[in-house]
């Protein structure tokens, strides 16, 4: 018999049987954990509302011999109400949850990934922050944390200081004209990326949407999909939103 008591973010949720759900949590100290939440699809469920996707909760699970635990208790820490009322924030947060689900390992603690996810969701929930670059910033920072962060200051192939005109993750990041591969990038997008990953993320996230922002968002999507070697369902299904 094993009890798991931890803070967690709900990454995914699948219906099970009549009124249950299988939930995938990223916990602060126990990695990715799956558990059944019984009866949560019923209108009168005592903790159904707390276990919605993207919620941060304090959860108590019973984990027996089986891999799948059973949720015994859940207390809401942050329900991210702003995310739930803004389509762009909601779909952006979903993409971040999908990427986190791919990066996190079952039962392998990754406090850094957990803190990054919590911070990212808090940013999405902050109405003063423009949502467009929150997810892309998370993708790049996740790549950096995995040792796959792009070179953004000099040409990733020859070390030339620039100008940097293209981006190819497989080549290591931004490239100069002589080493040009992959996707072309504007000078504004290069500067934005350098500010974003160079310690000025907070101010970047308060700036209005721009063409350079859209370019950086596309680079981030391409980079994370390349690193994960799969297409993100969230990005594909929300293209026309």
């Amino acid at each position, binding site marked *: 018999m094993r009890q798991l008591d931890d803070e967690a973010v709900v990454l995914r949720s699948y219906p099970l049987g009549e009124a249950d759900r299988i939930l995938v949590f990223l916990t602060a100290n126990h990695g990715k954990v799956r558990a059944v939440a019984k009866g949560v699809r019923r209108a*009168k469920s005592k*903790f159904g*509302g707390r276990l919605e996707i993207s919620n941060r909760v304090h959860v108590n699970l019973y984990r027996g011999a089986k891999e799948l635990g059973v949720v015994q208790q859940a207390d809401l820490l942050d329900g991210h109400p702003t995310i739930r009322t803004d389509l762009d924030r909601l779909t952006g947060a979903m993409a971040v949850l*999908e990427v986190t689900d791919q990066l996190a390992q079952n039962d392998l603690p990754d406090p850094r990934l957990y803190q990054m996810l919590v911070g990212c969701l808090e940013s999405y929930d902050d109405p003063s922050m423009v949502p467009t670059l929150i997810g892309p910033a998370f993708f790049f920072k996740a790549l950096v944390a995995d040792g796959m962060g792009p070179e953004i200051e000099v040409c990733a192939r020859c070390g030339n200081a620039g100008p940097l005109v293209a981006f190819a993750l497989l080549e290591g990041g931004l490239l100069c004209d002589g080493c040009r591969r992959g996707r072309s990038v504007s000078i504004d997008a290069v500067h934005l990326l350098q500010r974003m990953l160079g310690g000025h993320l907070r101010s970047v996230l308060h700036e209005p949407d721009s063409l350079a922002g859209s370019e950086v968002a596309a680079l981030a999507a391409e980079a994370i999909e390349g690193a994960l070697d799969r297409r993100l369902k969230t990005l594909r*299904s*929300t293209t026309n939103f």
Partner: protein
Amino acid sequence: MYPGPLRNLIDEFARLPGIGPKNAARLAFFLLRTPRDEAERLSSAIREMKERTTFCPICCSVAEGGQLCPICADDRRDPSVICVVQDPRDLMVVERSGSFAGRYHVLHGGLSPLEGIGPEQLKIAELEARVQDGVVTEVILCTNPNVEGDTTALYLSRLLRPKVAKVTKIAAGVPVGGDLEYADEMTLGRALEGRRDLEA
């Protein structure tokens, strides 16, 4: 282990939602012990349902033999108000409440970015076509109060607002007959957001 026909039936039952291998075997053995005419009634009910059940060409709910559904065929229903639901079963739930006299539109699912379900997989284009002629003055979004339902409602709101005078969403809150003590924070928060004037 089981003879071929029985094994096939167990496998088919096990494909149904909510039915595991043990329940599938239980159902198959129940039918094995059932008189032949009863088992054939089940078989013909399934066949008939597949042959005769169609989708209403207006609201996309279930209908019979390519006809309009009973609600779209009923002239007494208000055509200026459309209640959008995710599933035909949700339509039945709203109908049972007896509080709605307009028409419906069934999406056959909800937008689920995490599952890769986008607008083109749902009956959203059909809904958009229904509101083009200006007859519809209100669309009520009656989606589930979860992430999928919220995503669907927000998307439809963005899509329909330029075309329809009023786009509303059903209120969310404490179930009638329940105690506040047992309401979770999310539900109670939404109930407070959706509060309204009380006229004595």
